[in-house]
């Protein structure tokens, strides 16, 4: 068994999960180091404030440690924890009676296309954060759950306690808005260069 966190760093996620299942907390710490940012980022993308996202992510990791024996390595560890975190965030919203308000709230923009840019994936990642802000809270939640946490529409509907059709509509509207913002427009970058030159 590896004795230090340095040796845990060289192990694969599945091996770390085996050690964690045997009660090795340092191995689980390594998993948190690897995937903590992704889980916290997902929760922020779902609409949680930074502090709240960190709280929920922490609870999700603690729950994951308790249930680590259930992780069979069929998907990725990060995906598994993300699903736990997404569900925990929804439970928190339900408990604090904020979910109904989110479902009823409308978005700020309506599929307009300001900020359509060319560029790299890194640029688009930055844009994703901005683009998600233009979605209605329910759309943002549904899109993040389906494309960020990897839930099916049915699973998202069940977790959100919404009809499947409603979730599909939210996802479709959200995707349309994101596509309008994130799809590179040929020539935009070129025009930008020309105007700079």
């Amino acid at each position: 068994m590896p004795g230090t966190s340095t040796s845990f760093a060289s192990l694969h996620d599945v091996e770390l999960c085996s050690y964690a299942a045997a009660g090795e907390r340092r191995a689980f710490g390594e998993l948190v180091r690897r995937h903590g940012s992704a889980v916290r980022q997902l929760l922020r993308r779902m609409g949680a404030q930074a502090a709240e996202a960190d709280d929920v992510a922490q609870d999700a990791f603690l729950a994951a440690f308790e249930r680590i024996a259930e992780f069979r390595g069929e998907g990725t560890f990060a995906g598994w924890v993300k699903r736990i975190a997404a569900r925990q965030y929804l439970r928190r919203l339900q408990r604090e009676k904020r979910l109904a308000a989110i479902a009823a709230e409308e978005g700020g923009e309506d599929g307009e296309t300001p900020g359509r840019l060319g560029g790299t994936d890194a640029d688009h990642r930055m844009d994703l954060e901005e683009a998600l802000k233009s979605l209605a809270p329910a759309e943002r939640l549904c899109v993040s759950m389906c494309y960020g946490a990897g839930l099916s529409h049915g699973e998202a509907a069940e977790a959100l306690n919404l009809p499947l059709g409603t979730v599909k509509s939210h996802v479709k509207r959200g995707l349309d808005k994101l596509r309008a913002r994130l799809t590179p427009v040929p020539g935009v970058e070129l025009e930008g260069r020309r105007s700079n030159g």
Partner: protein
Amino acid sequence: MAELDFERRLERLFSQSPEMPDAAAFAERIERKLDRGWNLRRWMIGAAGLSGGVVGASQLVMSNLFQRVESAEESARVLSQGLARVTPTTDMVSALSGGYGVWIAVGLAVLTMGVFAARLVEEF
């Protein structure tokens, strides 16, 4: 087709998360919480084992064991007197046949419960 491409790209964008500057601190906080929870669990199981051992031992003592032991002690004395004719008695035999034997048994019971509790901690 373009729709599917966009969905794949969106999944890829969602999966790309830059490491946050406080990622290590976040992980350490969770490790500390796990350690605290683990220690608390260990103490609780230990305390439960000890109190179980004490209750078990006191039940053993209260259930007229002394009277039974006294009668057994008497029999043992007779037996040891008989044996003394054959082999020399030792201090150990006389100590066990006296009231000390009960308390040694009680101590052993508590110890056994303690070991059992420690084993439980290891298992969980």
